């Protein structure tokens, strides 16, 4: 088993899990269906193709930079005819950075890495209008579990975000990991993809487990220096 680590950073991201009709909400962190869809697109799979191998990957996210919620009152018109599309309300996560990990067989993870290097369909962050601002592929961890790999990865928040927290030498980041049986009662989210077929899209419930937060070094921390500690008393 190895872990494929992805970096999801962009000015806007949108990870819907429950939306219906004209109000398109977003979760605060990437959904499994969104990331599996991104990987399937990179592999060049059509919507109707089988995705059970990808859906079986174990999925986890680390929130490196939470970002802010952005609401868009969306009044689009058809490009050619000028006909108005239904007015909708769309939500985005702005200025966020996430590290996502998928754990699976070595061969599959390697295939996914190659697919991300030369994607067939372009990757986007939950919605077609949200391009990534950094390379998506981060790293492959061969000898670590999903949680451990996410804990070990350095902090990928933007420099300005790191500087904002420069009084903290290490920073705690929230982890959202796909639950296993022994994790006991957990939150659930309907984002376990079964089929992306446009005529028959189906998602199952997935347990989301929050293990203790990951602690990472803040490279922008302000050095503290008190020479009087060495002199014995103050």
């Amino acid at each position, binding site marked *: 088993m190895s872990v494929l680590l992805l970096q999801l950073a962009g000015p806007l991201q949108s990870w819907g899990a429950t939306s219906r009709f004209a109000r398109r909400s977003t979760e605060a962190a990437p959904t499994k269906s969104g990331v599996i869809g991104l990987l399937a697109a990179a592999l060049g799979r059509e919507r109707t193709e089988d995705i059970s191998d990808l859906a079986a990957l174990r999925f986890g996210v680390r929130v490196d930079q939470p970002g802010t919620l952005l609401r868009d009152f969306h009044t689009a018109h058809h490009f050619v005819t000028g006909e108005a599309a239904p007015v909708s309300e769309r939500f985005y996560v702005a200025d966020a950075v996430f590290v996502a990990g998928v754990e699976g067989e070595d061969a599959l993870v390697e295939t996914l890495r190659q697919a991300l290097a030369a994607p067939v369909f372009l990757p986007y962050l939950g919605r077609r209008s949200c391009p990534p601002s950094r390379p998506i592929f981060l790293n492959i961890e061969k000898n670590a579990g999903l949680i451990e790999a996410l804990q070990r990865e*350095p902090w990928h928040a933007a420099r300005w975000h790191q500087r904002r927290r420069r009084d903290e030498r290490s920073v705690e980041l929230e982890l959202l990991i796909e639950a296993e049986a022994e994790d006991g009662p957990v939150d659930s989210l309907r984002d376990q993809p079964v089929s992306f077929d446009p005529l028959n899209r189906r998602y199952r419930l997935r347990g989301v487990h929050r293990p203790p937060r990951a602690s990472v*070094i803040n*490279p922008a921390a*302000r*050095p*503290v*220096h*008190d*020479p*009087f*500690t*060495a*002199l*014995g*008393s*103050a």
Partner: protein
Amino acid sequence: MFLTRFRFNTARLGARRLLSSPQRLHAAIMFAFAEPPSLDGGSARILWRIDRNSRAETYLYISSPDKPDLTHLVEEAGWPETGRWQTLDYEPLLSRLTKGDTWAFRLTANPVHSIRRTAEEPTKVTAHVGRQHQMNWLLQRQEKAGFVVLEKPAERHLHHELDQYELVVHDRRQLDFTKAGQRKPVTLVTVTYDGRLQVTDPDALRQALTRGLGRAKAYGCGLMTLAET
């Protein structure tokens, strides 16, 4: 030797006046000693440094052979009612230094080199401006000063050249001020080094701590202090 700490009340005009001119601050520090400090090159001298930990937390550190009296600074730029300065004996620490010890250190210095642009030109003292050159300036001096900057384990490097050592270079400042009676302004580039070191030669380090490192010692450069890691 004594190490002194004084906290500026940065809301006061006097503090701002002093902090804006290394020339004035140098004079104010020299007047903290009733006996004029000896200026022969071989012995310990008065060194000082400003630590700007945050806007409201600005410290002046002075290392000096004699105890300073900072009453005038407190009256002009401190808290006359509630704040004073602290002076601690530096000797116990200086005599405790042993080979192999590791310490955290901070140094504000004026890293320069002498260069000429063409072969005919005389050499000119020129500031190091790049991060890498500023780091090398300290790394070149460490052996003579009796310490080595510790190296980071390879997996913690954030950058293959700039992050090899337990050392950060920050707070670069360009100082421009005129000296009374002189038309040409003084210009200086100062940077602050923060890092961890290992003692290799206690005597040499003791000298570096009491006599200072590099140039512009009158203007708040060259004082290195140690702290527990």
